[in-house]
């Protein structure tokens, strides 16, 4: 009898031990870092992407650390191994894909074009600037230089339309500091510049929010659609982890929540995202062609 009792006790103890070891508490799990490109400010990045990072940690059983990174430093810090996963605009993804063989994970969906976006060239209504030809000799404001839908797409559209931004316009500027895209829109609206380049998504959101109206601007041109913000993974990572990361992103729905300081936060809504989608790397070929024509990284030639 004692023998049986002892054997059952042993089994129970072994079961308990195995259960305890199977369940890794936070802090003892694998640690990894996700670099998020700052759109406007570090504070905004932290606020937007904390719930998403927390969701990924929960889903994958990995302690992910959120690292806000400035656009111009991104590829360099990634190459230096400061973080394993990346969240950037599609042009920065291209640069890292070329330079460090960054793997494509998933593309973000936001606005009317879903996982794609485009760039618009705008002028104030009543300015008489309605076509690309009208841009000659005008004062222009561009978005940040590594912004695919705030700079590259419009730069390429102008080149394709026979306007060389380096020669044909009076001058062009790029706003300093944060919130550059809104500064472009308001710079044109208040007449500081004749023409500006704004992401079509920003125009859509500002119109939807009632900040501007459709009658405030002429859309001089809109670029073809190109992939939007992109998640990538270092080439050296465990393929299973990478696949699980991708799956966790594409399976995200608007109902998914995480706890943050006693509050339940909606992951997608907090990050201003509609969802994620898997695109092929070949879907970025149009963007590659634009970068080549505009002599932009990663294909820049001096």
């Amino acid at each position, binding site marked *: 009898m004692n023998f049986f009792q002892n054997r059952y006790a042993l089994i129970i103890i072994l079961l308990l031990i195995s259960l305890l070891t199977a369940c890794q508490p936070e802090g003892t799990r694998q640690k990894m870092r996700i670099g998020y490109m700052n759109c406007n400010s570090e504070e905004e990045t932290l606020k937007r992407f904390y719930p998403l990072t927390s969701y990924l940690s929960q889903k994958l059983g990995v302690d992910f650390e959120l690292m806000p990174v400035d656009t111009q430093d991104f590829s360099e810090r990634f190459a230096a191994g400061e973080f394993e996963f990346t969240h950037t605009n599609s042009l920065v993804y291209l640069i890292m894909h070329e330079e460090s063989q960054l793997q494509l994970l998933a593309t973000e969906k936001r606005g009317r074009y879903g*996982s794609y976006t485009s760039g618009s060239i705008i002028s104030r209504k009543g300015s008489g600037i309605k076509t690309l030809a009208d841009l000659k000799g005008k004062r222009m404001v561009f978005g940040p230089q590594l912004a695919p839908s705030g700079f590259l797409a419009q730069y390429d559209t102008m080149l394709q339309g026979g306007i060389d931004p380096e020669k044909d316009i009076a001058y062009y500027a790029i706003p300093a500091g944060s919130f550059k895209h809104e500064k472009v829109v308001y710079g044109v609206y208040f007449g500081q510049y004749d023409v500006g380049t704004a992401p079509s998504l920003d125009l859509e959101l500002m119109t*939807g929010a009632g900040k501007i109206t459709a009658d405030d601007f002429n859309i001089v041109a809109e670029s073809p659609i190109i992939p939007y913000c992109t998640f990538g993974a270092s080439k050296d990572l465990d393929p299973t982890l990478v696949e699980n990361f991708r799956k966790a992103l*594409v399976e995200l729905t608007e109902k998914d929540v995480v706890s943050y300081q006693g509050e339940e936060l909606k992951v997608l809504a907090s990050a201003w995202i509609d*969802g994620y989608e898997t695109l092929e790397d070949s879907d970025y070929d149009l963007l590659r062609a634009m970068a080549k024509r505009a002599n932009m990284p990663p294909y820049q030639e001096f």
Partner: protein
Amino acid sequence: MARRDRFDILTGGGLLVCVLAVVFLLMVGQEKNTSAAALDKAMEQQIAYQARIEFLHNLYQPVEDLRLAGQASEALLKLDELARHYPQEAHGEILQAEILLERGAIKESIDHYVRAVRLNGDYVDKASPLTRRSGIQQLVDLRLPEFAARTRKNPQSLALQNTLTGLYYLQSRLSGGCE
């Protein structure tokens, strides 16, 4: 069978009077109908429908004008502006779908077509003044085999599955049947 008594005769007589009165009313009462309002519900419904069509045409005319002028981007912004005042209006969805299709955003265009048809079946009717049947038919004929093949190749993709479901929905609505 029991013999008819006076009560039966009186009741039967009353019944006959009532029947004759109804027949008389139906035959000659139409002209003398003192009802306050004319009763032609089918016509009233038609008038309300025509007024709605007219209203939609006027409301979305600026969008159509911009499209005709080749200014699709401005037309989309105009739609965003109208959507603030008339969210869930199927006509805005259908116009959005058409412009997005022209811009090459196929999946998003299909989403908007589905939303529009779910909100208002007139867009797949053959005879409706709002009909977009031929455009939707073309979209389904062209894109359904393509998305079915892409989904077979990539069965994990929820986005592709959603688009394919949307195309099947449109195909089903085009096939007709009861609603």
